[in-house]
């Protein structure tokens, strides 16, 4: 019996490794990383029965310099610092300045912004090094 035990343990190790390999291969063990600078906006969305909004900085900064939204459009540079309502967007403020069918698609495409998982907290996401300002 004793001669068999190393064999058995190496078989067990093999099985464990195989399971880990399968899990990582299939993607079940892969950690989720939001893209750097993704902002979740959920002050009102879920209370109003919509998915939270995901704002991707990476997408917008390819097309607009920071100064366009943070100077011309008046977005404060602090997640949570902007009290955005759909009423204002409809009136052409905030996102509505571009999402009006002229510069970008219209706000009738609710789901394109309101695309987040239920229960997300508002704030900046995506840094796997610092988790955003002040959250180490």
């Amino acid at each position, binding site marked *: 019996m004793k001669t068999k035990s190393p064999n058995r343990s*190496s*078989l067990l*190790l*093999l099985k464990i*490794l195989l399971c880990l*390999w399968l899990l*990582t*291969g299939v*993607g079940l*063990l*892969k*950690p*989720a*990383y*939001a*893209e*750097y*600078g*993704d902002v*979740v906006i959920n002050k009102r969305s879920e209370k109003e029965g919509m*998915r939270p909004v*995901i704002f*991707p*900085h*990476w*997408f917008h*900064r*390819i*097309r*607009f*310099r*920071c*100064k*366009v939204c*943070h*100077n*011309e*459009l008046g977005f404060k*540079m*602090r997640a949570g610092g902007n009290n955005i309502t759909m009423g204002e967007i409809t009136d052409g403020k905030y996102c509505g*300045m*571009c999402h009006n069918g002229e*510069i970008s698609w219209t706000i009738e495409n609710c*789901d*394109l*912004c309101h*695309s*987040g*998982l*239920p229960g*997300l907290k508002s704030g*900046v*996401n995506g*840094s796997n*090094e*610092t988790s*955003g*300002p*002040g959250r*180490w």
Partner: protein
Amino acid sequence: MNKKLILSLLLLSLSASLLAQKAKWLPLKRDGLHDPQSPAINILQQPSEALSLLPPDYTGNQVSWVDALQENYIEPRSTLFSDTQVNTLEMDIVMGNTGEMPMVMFPHTQHTEWLDCKNCHDVIFKEKAGSNPINMFAILNGEYCGRCLGAVAFPLTECNRCHSVPRNAFTGKPGVQPNGYIQSMKPN
């Protein structure tokens, strides 16, 4: 013998797949933010589609945004309205009060290509060099430079991108640099 071979092969492939996890740009449905059930998943642009074409970095979005802009990989708009004035400034500031760390060089050029003066002055920083009590605790709490660095610009783990002026190589004076740019460096 055979088992050892299989074992080592498995170990190899496991480490490879673990490495691949640090992989760049997860698809939206796996980023932990987007709802995989959302109709947006198949419509929105995937990060890899856009970001893989830009000059690489090893952190943040894995893109050097400053290079992307300066080397014309991207041409983001500066204004929406025709009457908005576009301001840029060529002025390096050296901050010498950095303890044992190399001094900080702040380049206005790269910042004003993205941002307007009013984004930082005077709300986040007073306009006079030397008049801001900047410190790393505040920055790590999202104040001063930490308003953007660590959130949308490169992470605060990249110390030497700001602390870039070795004390023994700098022969000039801290503060606003003459002719706009830092010139007084000894070869190290």
